[in-house]
């Protein structure tokens, strides 16, 4: 694992203070300004491989900005970040290339590499879409398109999986199925996962840790130790939900 190599970013080659463990994200003193406006303020944050972290916060608190910086889509203004080289993003909208067949949307620039198609089929089989490999994206439903987006990330065997509100455009029934799928894939492949969401219930349902972002800072770091196949109606579940909501109320 090396520092992210996209663009001359603020990453450095100095050894991580957590070299013994396996942080896939290690951020120190990260700030982001848009002109006068401060979105992230000297933020510290570490995410281990195999850990599932959800990032919640009122809109405009920089959740998505942080994810985009980690994903290399935006530059921070100052600070330091070490990020796993093998990082893949699943966006809110599936972002499929309509002019390419499903399996080519999975492999992208690898289409001519030997074995790429077979690996794409494996990834598609894992999301339950093996029979759609040759289909055109316009023929997919919303849930299927989002699963192709997940297969595309999975194909890259990422150490860090970034999820930018990937469930928010799905209907309630499909959302639960895709959420279960993501947890299932995470348990099988154990990447570090960073999920940005504004759905508190979703955060508590999926994550090991819920970070509450507010005013450009991490306001709270709430561990979720409930055993999985979590029951959203249980008292413990709702106690955690309430704690996060309280933090959110003070985050403004």
């Amino acid at each position, binding site marked *: 694992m090396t520092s992210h190599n996209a663009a001359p970013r603020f990453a450095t080659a100095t050894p991580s203070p957590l070299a013994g463990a396996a942080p896939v994200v290690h951020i120190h003193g990260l700030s982001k300004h848009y002109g006068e406006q401060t979105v992230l303020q000297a933020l510290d944050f570490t995410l281990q491989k195999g850990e599932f972290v959800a990032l919640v916060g009122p809109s405009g608190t920089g959740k998505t900005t942080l994810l985009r910086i980690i994903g*290399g889509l935006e530059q921070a203004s100052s600070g330091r970040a070490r990020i796993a080289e093998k990082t893949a993003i699943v966006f809110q909208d599936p972002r499929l*290339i*309509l002019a390419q067949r499903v399996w080519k949307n999975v492999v992208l620039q690898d289409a001519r590499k030997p074995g790429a198609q077979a690996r794409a089929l494996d990834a598609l089989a894992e999301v339950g879409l093996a029979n759609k490999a040759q289909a055109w*994206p316009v023929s997919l439903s919303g849930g299927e398109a989002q699963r192709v987006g997940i297969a595309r990330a999975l194909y890259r065997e990422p150490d860090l999986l970034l999820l930018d509100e990937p469930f928010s455009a799905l209907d309630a029934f499909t959302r639960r199925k895709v959420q279960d799928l993501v947890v299932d894939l995470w348990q099988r492949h154990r990447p570090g996962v960073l999920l940005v969401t504004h759905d508190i219930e979703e955060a508590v349902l999926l994550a090991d840790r819920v970070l509450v972002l507010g005013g450009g800072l991490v306001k709270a770091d709430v561990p979720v130790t409930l055993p999985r196949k979590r029951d959203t109606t249980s008292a413990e579940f709702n106690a955690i939900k309430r704690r996060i909501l309280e933090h959110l109320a003070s985050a403004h």
Partner: protein
Amino acid sequence: MTVKTLEYRFDSQAPASRAHGSSAALRLLVPVVLVVAWQLCASLGWLDDFVLPSPWHILLAYQELWHTGELQAALPVSLARAGLGLAIGGGLGLVLGVIAGLSAHAERLYDAPLQMVRTIPFIALVPLFVVWFGIGELAKVLLIVGAAIFPVYLNAYHGIRGIDKKLLELGNSFAMSRAEQVRLIVLPLAMPSILVGWRYAAGSALLGLVAAEQINSSAGLGYILNNANQFQRTDIIIAGILIYALLGVLVDIIMRQLERVLLTWRPRHDQP
């Protein structure tokens, strides 16, 4: 309250083939009626054969052109002119449009001058081209090049500019190189626009062909028309005009087929 009852029977929907056949018949109805009426008026002596010859006489004109070998000689010459002009002009428009679509620098460099030139009706350039390039093939082909270049340029440029920026961001986040993004994202998604550009360009090239062949042609369809004009053969003039029309229809059919093959990924809107 009133309630409407809808009843469906399994035979209420016509089989696809029958529906298709009847729609084709419907398309042909108006042209056929017009030609029959035209022939009828001519046969009844209501039309002056010199002003508007009957469809039958025009068919005889084709027979005459075929027997003298003029038609067989003219068609390849005209098609080669139009094809060459279209290939060069369309190709140039495509390259310029793609580059302008991808690079803001290139767009700033030559988009404004091209837009200015575009507003000149190319037919107005005929006298100037004769002065510059003479009355030979060069002036004719260049005129067709000028006619074909802009439709492809404009549509390629707009097709590329219209691509969702989020998809290019996707390319960046999945570490695709610029060339890979162009090959896998930009060109395939801009293809519908590019093909529309070629379709317009083909029509435009045909128009350019007609204008170009008015310049002292010694071969080609324009030559037949000029000759017929001198000998006051209205039937041959109309026969020649109809060939131009037929070429236009043919080009359209070819472009439609090309779209069908190249754009299989798009939902089809052209089906009844």
